[in-house]
Structure formats: structure tokens, C-alpha cells
């Protein structure tokens, strides 16, 4: 934790320095930027009518150089693009592929979204995660990810952009040790591999995932669900229906077209009627 002139209020993280002025656009002459990175960002900026459009490719490029969107990386992009670092961090924190923590410079995304979930993806992810921490897979960001758009290969993972699948929980150890040794895991089973075929494209079928554990037919001592309804439970209000749209456009100065009663009064009346109806 850095020392601050004024102690930070609780709940703020280190990144917020309330005792300092906000960072301004860095002076391009005083910031050292790797020449390739500068060239790449400037190349991106030239492609768009508005240079701000290059923010995403520029941050991705800086991340490739620095391993993550570190304050230094953001500062360098800000210097080249002439925007504030705060603007860049606001963008970087929005997107899942931009890392705002130093979690590793390469990525292993395991898809656990709906279609993969139906094919045992959770167990695959947990196995991979367990193996990764057991074998000490440093410099790799291992995480669950949103649908990666390869549900035909489910359950699958993206290894630095190389889609591999279908995976089995038993293969987690092999996958992680291949990554650790710098080998390509499962050659021939990645989407870009030449001659890639899914097992069932040649007459086979998809591997079946283990079914859910057998649930006993439960009859608890406290009664069944139907009994629960007679418990003293406050009634639930139905979702409010939207009012129908007014038949004619509103004229200026009125709230509801063709309405003689003040809508507020009418609502209160309706409520009173409801109250009276209740026992």
C-alpha cells in the first residue's frame, strides 16, 4: 500500500488517489513508448475517421506488450493517442479480454455457458482449475468465460485463441501439463488444425455426459409443498400492468388525454376501493 498524504476513505481501492489531481493527457515527448507499439497504435488510428475508435485495438496491442493493461501500459497508450488515462481505464475495465490485474500474459478460457453447461463444462472447468493450481501454471490466466461461439465442440476451451474441444474432465491434467511444458495441447483437436473434424462428423456420436445424481423421492416430515401454501405467507402483488397508451396525442399542459380526473386522485381512489374490498 502506498503512503498517501490524506488517508483513503474506507471502500476505495488503491487506484483512487483522492489527494492527487486527476491525471491529464500525458506529454507525448516525456513518455517512452516501445517503437513497435507506437507504430501499431498509430497504424490503428489512421484506419478510422475518429482516432478514438482505435482505443480497443490499441489497448489490446499494449496488453500484448505488457502482459496486462498495467498503469504503465495505459499511460503509454494515452501518450500516443492523446487521451486521458482515466478514459482508457474506463474502457479497459468494461471488456473481459482486457486484463486490469496481472493475472498472466496468456489465456485459457473455459466456456461454461448454457450449451457447454449442458455438456458437463462446469466439471471440466473445475478439473482444469484444480490442475492449474496443482501444477502451478504461472503466467496463464485461467478463467470461466462467456459463450465462445463453439457449441458444436462443447465443452471447449480457448487457448490463446486456439479453440480446443470437445474436452473431458479426465484430460485436464494432460492439457495443463502440455501448457506448462510449452507443447501444443491435443494436436489435431483444435479448430485451426488441418483436417479438423468433430468425432460425430464421421458417423460417431457426441460423448454423453454423466447424468445428474439420482434424487430420492422426498417426502419430508414437515409436509409437502402443497401444505406450504397454507402457511401464513404475505400475499405477493402481481406485476403491475402498464397503462394502455393514450388514444390521442397529448396536448400541451395536460398529463392524460381526455381525462377529467386528476390521475393522482384517481389512483388514491382506486387504492381506497381496494382497501375496502380487503377483509
Amino acid at each position, binding site marked *: 500500500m502506498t503512503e498517501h498524504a490524506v488517508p483513503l476513505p474506507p471502500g476505495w481501492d488503491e487506484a483512487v488517489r483522492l489527494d492527487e489531481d486527476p491525471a491529464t493527457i500525458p506529454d507525448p515527448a516525456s513518455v517512452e513508448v516501445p517503437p513497435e507499439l507506437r507504430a501499431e497504435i498509430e497504424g490503428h488510428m489512421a*484506419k478510422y*475517421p*475518429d482516432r*478514438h*475508435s*482505435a*482505443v*480497443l*485495438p490499441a489497448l489490446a496491442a499494449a496488453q500484448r506488450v505488457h502482459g496486462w493493461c498495467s498503469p504503465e501500459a495505459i499511460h503509454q497508450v494515452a501518450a500516443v493517442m492523446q487521451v486521458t488515462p482515466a478514459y482508457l481505464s*474506463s*474502457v479497459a475495465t*468494461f*471488456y*473481459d*479480454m*482486457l486484463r486490469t490485474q496481472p493475472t498472466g500474459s496468456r489465456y485459457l*478460457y473455459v466456456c*461454461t*455457458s*448454457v*450449451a457447454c*453447461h*449442458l*455438456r458437463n463444462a462446469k466439471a471440466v472447468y473445475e478439473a482444469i482449475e484444480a490442475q492449474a493450481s496443482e501444477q502451478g501454471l504461472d503466467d496463464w490466466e485461467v478463467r470461466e*468465460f*462467456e*459463450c*465462445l*461461439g*463453439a*457449441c*458444436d465442440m*462443447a465443452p471447449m476451451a480457448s487457448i*490463446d*485463441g*486456439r*479453440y480446443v474441444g470437445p474436452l473431458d474432465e479426465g484430460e485436464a491434467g494432460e492439457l495443463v501439463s502440455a501448457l506448462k511444458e510449452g507443447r501444443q495441447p491435443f494436436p489435431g483437436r483444435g*479448430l*485451426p488444425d488441418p483436417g479438423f473434424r*468433430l468425432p*460425430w462428423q464421421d458417423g460417431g*456420436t*457426441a460423448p*454423453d455426459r454423466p*447424468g*445428474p445424481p439420482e434424487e430420492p423421492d*422426498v417426502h*419430508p416430515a414437515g409436509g*409437502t*409443498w402443497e401444505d*406450504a*401454501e397454507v*402457511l401464513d*405467507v*404475505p400475499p*405477493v*402483488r*402481481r*406485476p403491475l400492468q*402498464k397503462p394502455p397508451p393514450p388514444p390521442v396525442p397529448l396536448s400541451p399542459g395536460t398529463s392524460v388525454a381526455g381525462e377529467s380526473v386528476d390521475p393522482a386522485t384517481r389512483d388514491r381512489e382506486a387504492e381506497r376501493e381496494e382497501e375496502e374490498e380487503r377483509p
Partner: protein
Amino acid sequence: MTETRVLLANIDEPGLNTIAVYERLGGYRSMRKALLEMSAADVLHELEESGLRGRGGAGFSMGKKASFIPKGAMDKYLCCNADESEPGTFKDRLLMQKNPHLLVEGCIIGSIAAGANKGFIFIRGEYELQANILDAAVAEAYDKGYLGEGILGSGHTFELVVHRGQGAYICGEETALLDALEGKRGNPRLKPPFPANQGLYQGPTLINNVETLCNTPIIIEHGADWYRKFGEGNSTGTKIVSVSGNVQRPGNFEVELGIPVRELIYGLAGGPPAGRDVKCFFPGGSSAPVLTKEHLDLPYTFEAMAEAGSMLGSGAIIVVDDSEPLVPLALRLAEFYRHESCGKCVPCREGTNWTVKMLERVDEGEGTPMDLDILEQVQGNIIGNCLCVLGDSMAMPVASMLKHFREEFEQHMEQARTKRDLAEAVA
């Protein structure tokens, strides 16, 4: 029943991603025809006549959308939505990987119809392989003079840039995509103004899905009348359907719209594993309300799916078999949307969070009889109350699961509670 391959006709041809093979198979003929033999108005007319509907989810008429772009000299843009993130959808991945030039040609034809001179393909960052293939295809097209200034001496100028996203589901929403393309956080915008009037950089913008644009060269080549012969009613043409989940042969199948759903799930995708039955299915990606096995004989069209209370969406069928417990599935779904909510509108930001919390309670046996009612109420309060449909995309399937399978939710809650009580008693 077999597939009707129009878009995927040559998909297995080796080297189709190179311009040489693509042109040998008749590629870029439609572009020449549209540029040299037809006027922009003719191209637009042909697209409108074809009845082609957007393949990204909303199913809006592509030609009509293009006709909304104002005429006159101004900077107009074409955006191709290649941010295919809807769970269950993987058709664009196949098209871009195997046949990138079809998309490039489609973008050129789209730009003629819209009068756009600058175009962007917004591809999700996870599709690194496909983005690299597209980059190479665009470079080849520039080399041949099919992109750039005065294409083939016709006076039509069109620049095309492949723009990579960085992982955000919401950027598949058209206005969020525009914000992301402008280098901002991908927050949806208030509509109107619609992108056709004020889109990218405040200029008129035509936004179309990959598959929609890939259909345009085929329509121009064979004519709208030929194209309309495929399909049923107002759902014309063929559709690439991604079938996934608990089926024996998941994959992409190109079929005529109007094919019975049963044919897709059982005939083409092999049906659920032996001994199991379909419990329910999402007919249009995970955002579509689920349908049950009573709906299996409906024709797969935009209209029939809407009538059954769901939608055709992006054309992705996710099959859930009868051994699958629904509560963890609903929870997984809700967690996904909670993570992907951009946080701009309160009903979605809070509603997805509360839905996850309540489903967790149900799943862990902490649920009370009220929870399912409140869960239903929360979904009702999300639908239609946000700038975009991300919140609805969670609320509709969760509400539909509750509607069709309420008993299972109640049973699951009861069993989980018993299990928890037993565990506590043992401890």
C-alpha cells in the same frame, strides 16, 4: 430430410478462404453485376423484394432497413455485426472461417444498397482465427481492386476495416456495437434516433449480421424471385441453424425456413442421447423463451416461433434433455446475463442480480414459497423496461422455464431443502 445448401454450398472446398478458389467458384460475380449492370436503386429493390430478414436475432427486413438510410452526399457507414456472442450460436464463425470472401462481397453489395463508403466488420475478440482469416481476405480484395476507391472503375468507393472487439456480449447489440466501435464502453444507446439516421460517428449507418450480408451476393446473382422460392410465407430463404446442447450430432445445418423443428433436432442433429427425451429447447439462442416437446412439430419460421411465444432469434437451437435439472440451468443462464449486463439501466442491472440471488436460494434449499412468485414478478418488471433487450434476454427464458416447469422448480427447492436439513442434522 436433408439440408438445403445455398450459403454453405461450397463450404468444404479446400482453400475456399483464398480469393483464387472463391473466384473460380463464381465469387465476386454478383459484385460485378451490382456495380456495373445495376443501379444502386436496383440493388436495393432486389434486396427488398427478396424478403430477406435479418439473421442476427430481430428478423427485420434487410432491404427495408437499407432503404431507411437517407439519400444524398454525406458520410454513410456499413457495419457488419460479427460479434456472435449469443450462447448457442456459431454459424457466423463457420462462414467467416471457411468463406470470408462471401462476407466481403456481401459487405460491398450492402454498401452499394446503403450508399456507404466506409465499412467495418466488428468481430468478437475471441474469434482470433476468424479475424486473421478476414484480415487476409480483405487484403486480397484490396489487391484485386475490389475494395478502395472507384471499385472496377464504377465510381463506387468502399473501404473495409476489420475491427476486433475485446469480449463483451452486449456489443452484439447494434447501438452498443457502435459505441464500442467509437472506442467507448459498449453501452446501448436510446433509440430513436435509429442507427439508420444517426449511427456511427452520428452518420447514417446500416448494421447487419454476417449471415444476412452473406445472403446478398446470392440474391443479386439469382434474383429475388429465385430466392423467394426458398422458405415459407414471410420467412424466405435458407437459414443456417446451429443445433447444440444434448444432441448426438451438434453442428450447423443449412435448411429452408419452414422445416419442422423435429426434423432439425432429430433428423439432422441426431436427437438427444439414446434413452432420453427432449424436455425443452431454446429455439433461437439462450435469449429465446424455451419451448417444450409439444412444440416439436411446429415449422421453424419467424412467425411460428413467435406464435408459440418464443422467437427464432439468431437461429440457434439448444436442446435440453429430460435428465437435465432446470434450476442449475436457469441459474447458469442468469449468471451469464448478470455478468454481461452493462449496468446502464436499473431494471436489467438489478433484475439480473436479484434473479441470480433468488435462483441460488432455490438451488441451495434456502428458498421460500414466495421466491418463485417474486422471481416471476422480477422478470415481468425487467421486460420492456430497458434501452436494449439484454435484460429481456434473461427474463424471457427464465420466466418461460417457470411457466412450463414450475412444478420442477418447487420440487427442486423442496429436495434441496431436505438435503440441506439432513446435512445439518448429520453435522
